[in-house]
């Protein structure tokens, strides 16, 4: 029995290592001098190692290397989207969970139903709308639609959580003369920090990694977020120039890697609240 368990563990470890190899290969490639990148047989230890590709994509002013700027763009768009999602989802979920009013159930049903709308289906009309607003190639043109994609999910997630909070706290605050906004900001939100955190990670990931919307909503290279900049870097470089591309890919993975390493313990918990009941 013990040995069978040992075999399963060994198999799992082997699979996990196999699973990590492609990503490791990207990292290793990004650290090799150009001449060593295309060497056969493949070298898994980047020796001599160099940060030249990182320097090139971050600081070079050449036409194709705009990863540094794209990194900044992605950061602004993703953080902006997190703020909009948290604000809009929380203010919407609060009355849906804690108040009674005509139309509540219809509104909630509409929001849940909208989770079935595929993002790809909205591309053309969303493009036309963004163009009419004069928002093409702007931060708001990326932030607001990005936030709208996550909004309904956020309402759903937060409402579930708000429903579980005890009413006594609200009642006590009300007796002390607190209005709904005060109750919302001083009682509900502080108690909801873990779930707000999970939603923030979710919204950040989804904005940081989205590709299709920025691909069409941005046509000025200096406004490209990372995925678009990387995709176009791919077509601009010849197939031998993998170094800068892999450096860019590694850089783009860093922020989420850090978030998930820090929040690792919460991942299962977060997905558990979010995914299953969605």
């Amino acid at each position, binding site marked *: 029995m013990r040995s069978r*368990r040992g075999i399963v563990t060994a198999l799992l470890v082997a699979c996990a290592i196999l699973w990590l190899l492609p990503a490791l290969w990207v990292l290793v490639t990004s650290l090799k001098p150009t001449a060593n990148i295309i060497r056969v047989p493949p070298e898994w230890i980047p020796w001599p190692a160099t940060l030249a590709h990182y320097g090139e994509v971050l600081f070079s002013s050449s036409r194709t290397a705009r990863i540094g700027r794209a990194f900044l763009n992605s950061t602004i768009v993703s953080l902006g989207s997190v703020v909009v999602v948290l604000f809009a989802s929380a203010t919407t979920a609060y009355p849906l969970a804690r108040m009674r009013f005509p139309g509540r159930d219809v509104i909630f049903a509409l929001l849940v139903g909208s989770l079935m709308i595929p993002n790809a*289906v909205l591309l053309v009309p969303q493009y036309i709308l963004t163009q009419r607003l004069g928002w093409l190639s702007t931060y708001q043109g990326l932030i607001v639609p990005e936030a*709208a994609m996550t909004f*309904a999910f956020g309402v759903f997630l937060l409402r579930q959580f708000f429903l579980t909070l005890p009413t006594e706290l609200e009642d006590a605050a009300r007796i002390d003369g607190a209005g709904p906004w005060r109750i919302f900001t001083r009682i509900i939100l502080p108690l909801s920090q873990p779930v707000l955190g999970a939603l923030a990670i979710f919204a950040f990931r989804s904005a940081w990694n989205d590709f299709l919307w920025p691909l069409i909503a941005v046509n000025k290279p200096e406004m490209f977020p990372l995925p678009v900049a990387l995709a176009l870097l*791919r077509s601009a470089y010849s197939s031998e120039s993998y170094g800068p591309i892999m450096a860019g890919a590694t850089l783009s993975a860093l922020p989420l890697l850090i978030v998930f390493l820090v929040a690792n313990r919460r991942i299962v918990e977060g997905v558990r609240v979010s995914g299953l009941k969605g």
Partner: protein
Amino acid sequence: MRRRGALTPYLFLLPGLALFAAFRLYPLLDGLRLSFTNARLGRAQYAFVGLANYGKLLEDTRFHVSLVNTAFYSIASTLPILAIPLVLAVALNRGMSLRTFLRGAFFFPFTLSVVTVGLTWLWLLDPVVGPLNYYLKSLGLPARSWLADPSTAMWAIILTSVWWVTGYYLVIYLAGLQDIPRELYEAAALDGAGGWRSFWAITLPLLRPVFLFVFVTHIIGSFQIFGQVFILTQGGPGDATRTVVQHLYETAFQNFFQFGSASAMAWVLFVVILVFSLLQFRLLRGHTQY
């Protein structure tokens, strides 16, 4: 005072619903309207053309090919995407010291953007300098131009997707497995049921809602597949990996700028996804006790 109280919920709802109405609801309906017009990029005036765009889709062989490819991708990727994470989750669901590391290793690719995933595999699958072909050759297996060969290109894209999402579904399955009460397994063990038996009699039936979730999420996602195709093959070789969204993207934003026609495609895709999702709910929910 009473009046103000009655308005309160709506004041709270205002920002969220405005966002929702402007960027979800309105585009959905506007897309339907556009699908009956001959709208084009940059053309201020356009006319209603009835069902002409839908009629054209019936004759558009590239659209047919893209539908078939999308369906093939969705179906062929379903089994690995349902089964591999399940097997891993069941194996990982015993308390072991390496659990956190293992879960993290499988989950890691899911934190990457589709573009990064695409670029990673583009490099791995490179016919000349990619490591995959090198190792295949050294094992005496045939090396190929995986992405340039119509018979393997779609499989390469499926491989990429499986690598990308396995960790996500693994975590979902793990969460589902943890919701199954331990006592059920203990009772089954007392009745003499072995590992396999309790897997079939307890684990699988109780995981049904999780299956439903994974299945529906996967189908909704896979019918919209775009990023992997855009990076790895751009729809080629020929039209071998052309998917609906790739076709829609090109129709609307690359070659022809036909917004009307692209909107008709979008609505066909929407209806297909809707029908599939509802079917899945019916099929799987009919039997659950939840």
